[in-house]
């Protein structure tokens, strides 16, 4: 209903109200183990020093089927049931950036636009004339341009950054809803069953009502 409403809304609203809203790039999510593992790898290198994923445990990564050695390397001496807690303490982060870096477990679900938002945000950095970096999607951001998307705007380098961002978003999407694949699979069975059942019920109803008159 809400999506429907949004479609209606976007198609008929005057542009003035949305002029300051940046247009999001569309990301082609990968949901295979390989991409998600690559995303985890990039995230552990680029994001994990500051960002926590409090609802994800190292054991979840193993259960999902990620490479045992990699998980072992990421967790170091922390227990398997420990959450993916940022390496930097929150107090240090606040000292450094002025505010605490948000938890990433639900980031994809917590933004209008979902994966497209996070992807566009990661690639939304640009060089300002004074040498500092800005972000088109979230101008107030305190996060540095960690993938160097502002500095690599063309060619092979740009494609590489895009691939990295896509992997991170694929991982974060899995993390935000780890049962999604199971849900979709179950959904086909449930709806298939219901269609058969409803068809049969239709004929039962027709048969019963034909006795009238």
């Amino acid at each position, binding site marked *: *209903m*809400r999506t429907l409403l949004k479609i209606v809304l976007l198609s008929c609203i005057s542009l003035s109200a949305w002029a300051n809203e940046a247009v999001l790039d569309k990301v082609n999510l990968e949901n295979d183990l390989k991409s998600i593992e690559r995303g985890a790898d990039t995230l552990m290198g680029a994001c994990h020093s500051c960002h926590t994923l409090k609802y994800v445990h190292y054991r979840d990564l193993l259960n999902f089927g990620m490479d045992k050695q990699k998980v072992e390397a990421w967790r170091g001496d922390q227990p398997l049931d420990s959450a993916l807690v940022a390496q930097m303490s929150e107090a240090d982060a606040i000292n450094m950036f002025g505010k605490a870096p948000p938890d990433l477990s*639900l980031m994809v679900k917590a*933004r209008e636009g979902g994966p497209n938002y996070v992807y566009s945000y990661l690639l939304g950095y640009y060089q300002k004339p004074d040498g500092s970096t800005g972000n088109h999607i979230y101008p107030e951001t305190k996060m540095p341009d960690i993938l160097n998307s502002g500095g690599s705007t063309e060619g092979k380098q740009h494609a590489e950054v895009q691939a990295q961002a896509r992997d991170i978003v694929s991982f974060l999407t899995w993390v935000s809803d780890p049962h999604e694949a199971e849900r979709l699979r179950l*959904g086909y069975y449930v*709806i298939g069953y*219901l269609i058969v059942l409803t068809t049969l019920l239709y004929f039962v109803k027709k048969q019963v*009502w034909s006795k*009238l008159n």
Partner: protein
Amino acid sequence: MPGRIVEWIDQRFPLTSFVKHELTGYPTPRNLSYWWNFGFLAGFVLVLQVATGIFLAMHYKADVALSFDSIQHIMRDVNYGWLLRYMHAVGASAFFFVIFVHMARTLYYGSYRAPRELMWWTGQGLLLLLMATAFMGYLLPWGQMSFWGATVITNLFRATPFFGDQIVIWLRGDFTVGDATLTRFFSLHYLMPFIIFGAVLIHLVALHTVKSSNPSGINLADKDNIPFHPYFTTKDLYGLGIFLIIYSIFVFFIPNSLIEPANNIPANPMQTPNHIVPEWYFLPFYAILRSVPNLVGGVLAMGLSVIIFAFMPFLDRSRIPGGARYRPIYKLRFYLFVLDMFILGYVGYVPPTTQTILIGQIATVIYFASYFIIPFISVKEDAWLFKRGLPPEVMALIEKEALDKEERKQKRLRRQGDIT
């Protein structure tokens, strides 16, 4: 053996006769369309919500420090917890959808008219109970939208004369929405469905006294009534199948389309979301609230917009039986009203701009005007339709009703004559 047990029970409890009179043999008009399936569907969704809710409550923790995490625990760790939660969340929307269709059917076919006024009013009570239950349930995930939605709505009670501020604190149990609010909302959210069950029982007792209305609006002869079983059991089950397919598409494929992204951020009393929106089913009423620039006026307008349905039996003065079927102007009013609801819903959803506020104000005026003009259009329309001529069976019914009325009046007069 089973026969003897039933006999034993029947001597002590009217089991067989109850089942025969109220369930299997209950006389139902044969011409009911699929629009009459939605009452049964509402009952089904109520049971579904209670069933999933009971299991969710086993894993949920009502505590500002724990509730957001406990939802994630349900979504990630509990076996099929994600299914329970999505069924419950989508179920809330399904409930309102089904109830809105049920109400629209009543309005279209004039099912609120004599002798079914009490059905309509108990239904109105059920709508209010449902809204309260849904509103309190929405606080429980303790997300940003939960917190700010509850803050905005409890704040409306400030409009109460004399004790406004005290009432808001009394409702919240604190100066702001906090732990005390969360625990009481959880407690009441668990209680209300059982009150709804009781109210549904009253709704059904009333139904079984006056029986179902039907699309023609004409009281049917006995030969046109058929037993509920097997005709309507099969029809209701077929309708349920269709409903479940649509419901499952939402549960399994687009469950997050009904959850605001901001509600995946834990409640933060220090930071207001950019744009506070209620759930879709409250949007038209929310738009009416925002259309009135002053708080007391807005609250009154919103309150009236929800309970105005209850006035329908008084507003509709038409002598032509049924609803829109024989009454083109009433039909036009009905469709305009539905369109107006959609416009209000849209206005309630978008961030307010001068343009949308103006649209909202016009739509609010149309909303109320569409009710206040009913007495006038029903009288004018009657005059016009009688002049133009109505189908003979409708005319016969109107004449019969006039005769009945006259007879009742004579009887009353005679009784009064006896006393004096």
